[in-house]
């Protein structure tokens, strides 16, 4: 009898490590494979990443790293269709955590974590430059008597493109008479990049020290530019006081509109389509609020793409993919700008820095010259000025 050539040996020790790292998230999976079939990577690649296989690996504690472990953008499409409600993201991040321990992570990612460790941001920029996005504006240091803390985030603080989003948001807050401040140079990295790359221990440290900082600063309502920061504060941070209320800015703008503090009186004749960021829509069920902000602008026409709301197509920047290279031809955002252009909209509106970066990058490549990418805050600011 010939020896089986591709059998694998299961080791209890490995199984225990994997089970611990993934928190047993994979256990409920009955291997139906819906996740693999629906993974949007199938739209841009010949085949999807085999999520079913990754989950099976986590169930059995198989050694080695599954193909595609680092390709996942944590867009949550698979989980939204999973009949057994498996926390697939948790399983994937758990396996990434083990990869860190084995020092088998893609090139460049250790540098990213060191950047965050030394400089407090994911772009390796000096912490002293963090407040420079607002150098022409009189933005004060947050005090507990302020209505909100504006949490700017790494992207809006350092990326010149996303700084414009923060500028628009500040103009809206000022127009509504909101009292607000920022933490300036003290503002920390929220931890999203670290978490989505699976470095669980480090993100736990970040969360602990940040939560203490926010508590000591007297933070109550906290408004973020990025849905990723929002997701961290809303779902991963301890709610250190009953008053702690993290909000993505789209939610806060809607509050200001509903409270009649922010009003768009002039017409803005613009045909737009709205791209739902995964971290708002699928992850946090926030689909209506950004649309309601858009609909409150007179003259603005909102048309929908086929894949919208809970069925949105990821821009490709989540799950730490912003810091990894995605090969040409495999970028979701290339498809997305085509879908946006097909609606006949002049502008694709979104409200996530990663989405803006990816969509604009694809737009310059694909060259849909009539279409522009704008942030929700920029559109609202334009409506205020028009």
């Amino acid at each position: 009898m010939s020896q089986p050539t591709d059998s694998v040996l299961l080791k209890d020790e490995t199984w225990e490590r994997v089970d611990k790292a993934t928190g047993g998230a994979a256990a409920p999976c009955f291997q139906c494979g819906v996740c693999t079939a629906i993974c949007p990577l199938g739209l841009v690649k010949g085949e999807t990443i085999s999520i079913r296989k990754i989950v099976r690996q986590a169930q059995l504690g198989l050694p080695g790293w599954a193909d595609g472990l680092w390709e996942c953008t944590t867009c949550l499409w698979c989980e939204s269709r999973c009949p057994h409600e498996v926390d697939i993201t948790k399983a994937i991040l758990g396996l990434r955590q083990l990869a860190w321990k084995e020092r088998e992570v893609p090139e460049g990612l250790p540098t990213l974590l060191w950047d965050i460790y030394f400089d407090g941001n994911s772009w390796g920029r000096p912490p002293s430059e963090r407040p420079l996005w607002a150098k022409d504006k009189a933005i004060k240091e947050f005090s507990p008597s302020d209505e909100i803390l504006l949490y700017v985030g790494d992207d809006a603080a350092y990326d010149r493109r996303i700084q414009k989003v923060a500028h628009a948001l500040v103009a809206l807050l000022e127009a509504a008479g909101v009292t607000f401040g920022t933490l300036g140079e003290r503002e920390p990295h929220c931890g999203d990049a670290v978490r989505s790359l699976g470095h669980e221990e480090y993100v736990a440290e970040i969360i602990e020290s940040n939560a203490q900082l926010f508590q000591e600063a007297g933070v109550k309502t906290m408004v973020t530019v990025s849905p990723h920061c929002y997701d961290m504060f809303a779902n991963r941070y301890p709610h250190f006081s009953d008053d702690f209320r993290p909000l993505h800015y789209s939610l806060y703008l809607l509050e200001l509109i509903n409270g009649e503090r922010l009003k768009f009186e002039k017409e803005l004749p613009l045909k737009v389509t709205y791209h739902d960021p995964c971290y708002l829509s699928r992850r946090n069920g926030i689909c209506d609020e950004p649309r309601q902000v858009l609909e409150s602008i007179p003259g603005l026409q909102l048309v929908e793409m086929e894949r919208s709301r809970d069925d949105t197509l990821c821009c490709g920047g989540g799950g730490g993919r912003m810091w990894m290279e995605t090969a040409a031809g495999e970028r979701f955002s290339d498809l997305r700008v085509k879908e946006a252009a097909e609606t006949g909209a002049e502008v694709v509106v979104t409200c996530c820095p990663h989405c803006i970066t990816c969509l604009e990058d694809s737009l310059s490549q694909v060259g849909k010259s009539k279409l522009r990418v704008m942030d929700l805050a920029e559109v609202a600011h334009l409506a205020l000025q028009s």
Partner: protein
Amino acid sequence: MTKSLYGAKEAKAIWVYLEQDEGRLESVSLELIGKAHELAEAQGIPVVGALLGDQVSSLAQEAIAAGADEVRVAEHPLLRQYTTDGYSKVFTELILKGKPDILLLGATPNGRDLAGRIAVRLRTGLTADCTDLKLEDKTGLLIGEVTGFGGGILAYIKCPDNRPQMATVRPGVFAVPEPETSRKGKVVSVPVELAEEDIKVQVLEHAVGGGVDITRAQVLVAAGRGCGGDFSLVNELAGLLEGEVGVSRVPVDEGWASRDRMIGQTGYVTRPKLAIVCGISGAFQFTVGVEKAEAIVAVNIDPDAPIFEQADYCIVDDMFNVLPPLIEAVKKARGGNGGR
């Protein structure tokens, strides 16, 4: 800590490993001779080159012209091609006889390989991949500058107790000195004991790869969408400036350039002395990979291109108008002092 095989008191001279391949000296070896000469002069100690190979003694004069006071030549037919075993054995013996205070090697693939072995055999420390060298003011100890944590920090490392104080240095950090052909030095031939059994590796084929490492380049000429796939001028300028060609993401996407030349967040973070950035608009994800350059010259046809916010020198024009006269000017300047 492990005791080194000889002490600081017996140690003398700065040694430089003269790496040769097929009878040609690596330019980093001459760069290091030049730097060693500068450091040694201040201390009043000699610079010794160590040359290993087969029938290579004719290269000794090149090292002397660059600043070596003495060259020790170890020749043997089995040293014709680099092998870790053979070179480690012969070089270790050479070092134990000469007892250098400082030993410098180029951070080339073979130099790195050899340095690690030697350091362990000599029970001493090795500061790998230095980007600068100096001697400490009072003690005269060697201080190597290295980048740590993926380029995030600069660290200064010394080896106070053990000898030799070893360092590998990236090629291109120091300039190759002008050869002083009249310079005199001693050439000492040392006997070599080496048998075939000492070498466990058999070299089947010797090939030089075309790999690039833009993170080490002192000069980068970078091009993006604006070059339209035509790299002729960019290549020429990079060649003249002894630099490398870097690219933004578009040329990689378009298949004009390979990924190992990509600058940026998902490419490589570089820190050249000079970056000439042509036809690249300068999205944030690109500029994070080049902003540590000491000087950035940006050439772009679009006056609103964000790259101009980062650049030290801004030229608003088509790169195809700017580069030809620049290339001519560099050629002229190079021609003027006899070229290199």
